[in-house]
């Protein structure tokens, strides 16, 4: 038994190291002077420099894509969780014909490969003059994020006993009020997990962001980083620094809410 435990620990350590190493290399690389990067890139730079980060914000105005990403991912998350939770609540509770079919269709919508709908979406957005605008990104993101959010939340709401909101309604709350005062507080872990998954998806999304924006005014972080590449060279130091800046908020978010996410994703596995 003890031997097996030790093996398990070893495997886990190896996995974590393997997963963390690229991230470590990115951090180290972002602190390495440009010249050293092409001379075999040391494991840890001596001395570490902040010139890439300085260049990122001083020369490249990297705060612009960060702002755009925050706006787009934030708005997508907000709409997704609010509208999605109302929709999921209805699907979880109301009895009507064709519910299973409706749930299936909702999920099917998010199954289309992105690349297949980029062109039609572009034409659609152009015809309503939403190219290179925030709504031009938020709306397409919602079409992908919302079905998954609805599915996650339907599963979550279903496990909350219906008697709780019935009690609230008999107690004098309307359906919406019962939802807000009783269901939402109890579904917080599920809502948090959904919010984070949506935010991470929107934050990292590349294809739509590249296709539906025209210039730095609306480009998001992944697009901005991809466009660092010049005609003759790739500024690897800055790319790595930008990657760190882009990853940090998401990683922080996940770490802070880690327990909630796990609770949310495994909800229903064990009766609590």
């Amino acid at each position, binding site marked *: 038994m003890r031997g097996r435990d030790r093996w398990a620990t070893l495997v886990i350590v190896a996995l974590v190291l393997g997963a963390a190493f690229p991230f470590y290399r990115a951090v180290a690389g972002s602190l390495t002077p440009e010249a050293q990067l092409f001379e075999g890139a040391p494991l840890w730079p001596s001395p570490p420099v902040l010139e890439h980060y300085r260049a990122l914000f001083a020369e490249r105005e990297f705060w612009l894509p960060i702002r755009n990403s925050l706006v787009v991912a934030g708005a997508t998350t907000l709409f997704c969780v609010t509208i999605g939770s109302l929709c999921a609540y209805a699907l979880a509770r109301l*009895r*009507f*014909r064709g519910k299973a079919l409706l749930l299936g269709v909702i999920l099917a919508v998010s199954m289309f490969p992105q690349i297949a709908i980029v062109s039609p979406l572009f034409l659609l957005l152009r015809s309503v003059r939403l190219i290179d605008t925030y709504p031009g990104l938020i709306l397409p993101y919602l079409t992908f994020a919302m079905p998954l959010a609805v599915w996650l939340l339907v599963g979550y709401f279903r496990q909350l*006993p219906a*008697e*709780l909101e*019935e*009690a*609230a*309604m*008999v*107690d*004098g*709350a*309307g*359906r919406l*009020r019962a939802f807000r*005062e*009783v269901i939402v*507080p*109890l579904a917080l872990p599920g809502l948090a997990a959904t919010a984070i998954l949506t935010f991470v998806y929107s934050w990292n999304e590349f294809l739509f962001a590249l296709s539906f924006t025209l210039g730095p005014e609306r480009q998001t972080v992944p697009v901005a980083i991809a466009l660092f590449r010049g005609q003759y060279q790739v500024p690897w130091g800055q790319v790595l620094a930008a990657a760190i800046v882009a990853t940090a908020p998401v990683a922080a978010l996940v770490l802070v809410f880690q327990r909630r996410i796990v609770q949310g994703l495994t909800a229903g596995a064990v009766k609590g």
Partner: protein
Amino acid sequence: MASIRLEKVWKTYPNGHIAARGVDLTIADGEFMVLVGPSGCGKSTALRMIAGLETPSAGRVMIGDRDVTALPPQERDVAMVFQSYALYPHMTVRDNLAFGLRMRGAAPAAIAARVEGAARALGLESVLGRKPGQLSGGQRQRVALGRAIVREPLVFLFDEPLSNLDAKLRLETRAELARLHRRLAATMVYVTHDQEEALTLGSRVAVMREGQVEQVGPPLEVYRRPATVFVATFVGSPAMNLLPADVLAGQPPGGSPFGAAATLGVRPHDIAVVPAASGDLDALVDVVEPRGSELLVYLRLGRSGGGPEIRVITPPDLEIAPDDVVGLRFDRERLHVFERDTGQRLGS
């Protein structure tokens, strides 16, 4: 306070299940009405339609003089105690009790006073700051009760509120509910599958079966004069014995001529064990169960035990053992006769 009336109420669920088939029921102001029946008989559905949690497919629900058929629960001024208690797990006991008043826009000072009052009446003062998860089963039950009481509603609805308690606590709470009803003199509707609970608590009892009310009446009347075979066997424990009426061939019960088209019902308490050949019928003893204050004896009719099974309650000190042949004497005043095909009561 208010009366409640269900008028020809039907309920068909989307899956096709019919839970109420033209239920007609009037519950008087201040009455403790118990709906009792086996699971799936529609008693909970009837209660939920009074609460407004289900909408009837046809028929009317009246509370007082108001037609509430189409009103949502929050506009009916009813309070309900759920089987699972349905306490809000994220709120303290105090907030649980205050929730209904808060939803109805009561002033904070008034809320505080009424919550304190209810907590004192139910012995919950010391746990007001706790959450439901930190309470015992009995305490949770009290909080659920308190949540209904603070509201001072027109009507109290109970959906099997005692079924999650252990036997001892159930008896205590049952007595407490009876006291509560006497003190508040409120209209209460109580759903249970336990016929004993129904008989002890109800001012009147409605026995339900397959979405219909079989009989409504005071507990003693339902027990003494069951309207149908179903009520006869459902109410009373151990259940009434049913025999083809011709087992008493040549000795028509009560002196009236019932043919073979009748079923005879006789409660185990209404049969006396006498020496063989000196009673109405002879029977062979099968099993003897001592129950403390009495014996429950299972017998088979006929000297060789070839007839139908019959249950008899006897005094605890009766000398009786399996394979004895004994005589049975039926109490002629307490025989029930039912039409064999319809199950309806015949005669008085």
